[in-house]
């Protein structure tokens, strides 16, 4: 006890010698002002600075996560749009194919109808021509046999015979057949 007292007593005067850190006479002063400083720092930090920083950090965190969510949403929207576009494209293709097929069928039908029409016309014309030819032919045969009968009758008369119409007819017909 006595030694500590002498140390403490001597500290005031002998402070120029030993370590100033161990000059316990200055300790109450140091502790007092340190506590004052710490209390001020504590008040400034906890009452003003730290709540502000915390709110800014929270806001930034919220903003970032919000932005990320928005980006995610936009991405999914873009994907949906792409899907819809592809679907529409596919549908349009199918539609176009259908239209092409329908048009082809229609054209074919028209073509077939026109062909049939033309065929009918052609065959009608051909039949008519054939009839005319047959008529002309028949007309010619009749004219020939008539000329032959008349000629044969005249020949018979000229040769001094009597013209037997029936006999001439038969003879001409026989000749014409041969």
């Amino acid at each position: 006890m006595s030694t500590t007292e002498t140390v403490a007593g001597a500290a005031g005067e002998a402070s120029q010698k030993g370590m100033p850190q161990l000059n316990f006479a200055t300790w109450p002063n140091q502790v007092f002002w340190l506590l004052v400083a710490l209390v001020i720092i504590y008040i400034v930090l906890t009452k003003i600075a730290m709540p502000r920083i915390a709110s800014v950090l929270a806001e930034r965190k919220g903003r970032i996560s919000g932005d990320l969510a928005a980006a995610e949403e936009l991405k999914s929207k873009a994907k949906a749009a792409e899907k819809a576009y592809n679907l529409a494209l596919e549908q349009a293709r199918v539609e176009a194919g259908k239209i092409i097929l329908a048009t082809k069928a229609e054209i074919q039908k028209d073509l077939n109808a026109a062909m049939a029409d033309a065929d009918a016309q052609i065959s009608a014309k051909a039949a008519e021509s054939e009839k005319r030819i047959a008529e002309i032919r028949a007309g010619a045969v009749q004219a020939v046999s008539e000329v032959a009968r008349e000629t044969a009758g005249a020949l018979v008369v000229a040769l001094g015979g009597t013209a037997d119409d029936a006999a001439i007819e038969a003879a001409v017909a026989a000749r014409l057949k041969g």
Partner: protein
Amino acid sequence: MADEAGGLVIDPMHQFQIHPLFGEGPLTWYTPTNQTLWLGIAVVVISLLMLIGSAPRKVIPGRTQSITELLYTFIHDMVEEVTGHEGAKFFPYLMVLFTFIVTSNLLGLIPGSFAPTSHIAVTAVLALMVFLTVTLVGFYKKGIGFLGMFWVSSAPLVLRPILALIELISYFVRPLSHSIRLGGNIMAGHAVMKVFAGFAGVMGIASIVPIAAIAAIYGLELLVAVVQAYVFTILTCVYLRDAVGEAHH
């Protein structure tokens, strides 16, 4: 002590003298001293940095805002990581500790200034505050179970009483090592620079050597100033974990 060595007068401890700021009068408990001045400067610097830095509240921070936010998240992550979620309510306390120590250490490196953290009185108060907080919170949270941290249940039964004694001693040595580590580091760095400066004063042209040494040590001291503040704070977190977190033995 380091009085006379062949005409060379080096008194590396003189820089740590505490004297009244005004006049010569006796040093009472409230007398403003040179230490008070530098404590005040530290308070002003911290307040300005934290207030100016937190004022803009921009989503994209500027320079000062970045510094304060870096400080904030650095300490916040440290507290969360070391003491766990339970210890998060001690975050403001650790923020005060770290900002005060790092600012005092760095301000003390200004030539002609005074580092309050080079005084054992200051670091002892800081360490005792941590010690008392840990002890009181530990008993408040865990009751008598707080003493369980001295009873190493993973050790063989025979060894446990011995380990308990060692743990108990180490627990009470904590504030001592906690405070002397910080104060001693800062004091030693400043004293070494003063010694080299004393050499530089008498060596003539060759004083380029001690001046270069001072420059090198100054760089080291910048590192020490930040690292010791970090060490003090993270040790506080580790001690707090004993009080609030799961037992780690």
